[in-house]
């Protein structure tokens, strides 16, 4: 996957990603319209499908609302890179199949507007503007199984049928 980078700071909370005033629905298309609205009201207009979000520390802190990764995914963002993720956001992203990558260096160095390509299998993040390659933290084995199964529900479904 390849896309343009949109950078955000530390502690981007779920109220900024999808404000509670839009939580009276869980329809992904509807949630996509307001993605990142309280961090950047113009975000959905200036982003393109396939673009990449880069956050700082503790990305997705706050509420357990799965609507947050859902709105990012449904808006067309292909992956989120951050220095670290809040734990419920991390779980939720894996469970719904939003690719997330942890890399302090990449989050620090890659500039706003840069073109970046990501290889999810190897965890390689390439800054196409500078040519520099970054390696994301690998997922624990168990989590990789959930990712490979295409999310938690497919994973459970398989186990459930046994």
């Amino acid at each position: 996957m390849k896309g343009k980078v949109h950078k955000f700071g530390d502690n981007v909370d779920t109220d900024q990603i999808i404000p509670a005033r839009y939580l009276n629905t869980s329809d992904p298309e509807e949630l996509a319209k307001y993605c990142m609205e309280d961090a950047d009201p113009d975000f959905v207009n200036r982003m393109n499908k396939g673009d990449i979000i880069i956050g700082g520390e503790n990305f997705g802190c706050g509420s357990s609302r799965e609507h947050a990764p859902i709105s990012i995914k449904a808006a067309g963002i292909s992956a989120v890179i951050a220095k670290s993720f809040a734990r419920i956001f991390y779980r939720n992203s894996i469970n719904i199949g939003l690719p997330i990558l942890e890399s302090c260096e990449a989050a620090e160095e890659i500039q706003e507007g840069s073109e970046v390509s990501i290889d999810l299998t190897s965890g390689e993040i390439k800054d196409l503007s500078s040519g520099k390659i970054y390696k994301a933290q690998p997922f624990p084995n168990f989590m990789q199984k959930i990712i490979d199964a295409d999310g938690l529900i497919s994973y459970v479904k398989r186990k459930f049928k046994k």
Partner: protein
Amino acid sequence: MPQTITQKILAAHAGKKEVQPGELIQAKVDMVLGNDVTTPPAIKEFNKIGATKVFNKNKIALVPDHFTPNKDIKSAEQVKMMREFAKKYGIVNFFEIGCMGIEHALLPELELVKCGDLIIGADSHTCTYGALGAFSTGVGSTDMAAAMATGEVWLKVPEQIKFVYSGKIPKWVEGKDLILYTIGLIGVDGALYKTMEFTGDALKQLSMDARFTMANMAIEAGAKNGIFVPDAKTTKSRGAKVYKSDPDAIYNNVYTIDVSKIEPQIAFPHLPSNTKPVSKAKNVKIDQVVIGSCTNGRIEDMRIAAKVLKGHKADKNVRLIIIPATQKVYRQAMKEGLFDIFLNANAAVSTPTCGPCLGGHMGVLAEGEKAVATTNRNFIGRMGHPKSEVYLSNVAVAAASAVLGRIGHPEEL
């Protein structure tokens, strides 16, 4: 290996003798919780699994509390979906308005959660039940769906941090101040993925209500769970199992906090860690005060509010909203005559709801407005307009601030 209370509960629910931080386990759950925001997506996921029944009709709690009584048509449809799901699968613990309360006040009150339990909830403040000596953590809707079908959840055993509180708790200092002070000390990711174990002699002075307030906000430091080791004050419901940390259990970090030096705390916008003592928070004029939420809507909170507000009126420029967290708290406050005090202070008293805490309804802020709230988050736009501001405080300070029209100390009245 010596174990902490958290490790012991996790091990017991994973069918193991002991567990180590970093280990991935598949654990059995004693309760799965969802609310009107998180349950509808969980139902959609549950339906994809192909399960014909839930794992246990008694071990699922569905509490419509965020946008109830339904604030608009879409919210009404969300709750309708929950109601029909509960009926279809015979889920015993579905709480309609009139019987409901804010989930994290309601479940302990009904003793649906107890010490020694493992609880997951699709709400980040599920960590509240750690006050009982239970392992309790927030998850998302998909995790909730999987647990409703299987009765299990995968968990990574968290690293352990211990907080030791000592000293006499000063007048007007509440559990809220201890936890705000702690979050200020370690930051909003200071306990990321970890356990916050609350210990020390000072905590013996805290009621169960105050302990719920502390455990409730463990998530605001990024923690997986917050937990108290049960003592004489801990509610021990039937079937409860008491676990204690071994004296030589291993902690990544130990923080020692002398509570006698703590003042009531204010968390300034826009992070719960942005704390200052109330004495350093002068001249902040406010438009609204909210007393309530899963953090501070219990009977002790209502009593503190009444003690401060008695004989006073809210400043004419301040809208004062008081929300008892459950029907039982509401009735008790009414019986004790607290509502007379609130109404004499020109407060609006509401039926239980999360409402304004997350900017849902019942007290949403306009552009440029400032509120003091006993709630748990002061993120950008949390209580309404992205350019509004929330200052977090304890109950006494919130009540005093309503009267003063600015952030202030109860002693100023």
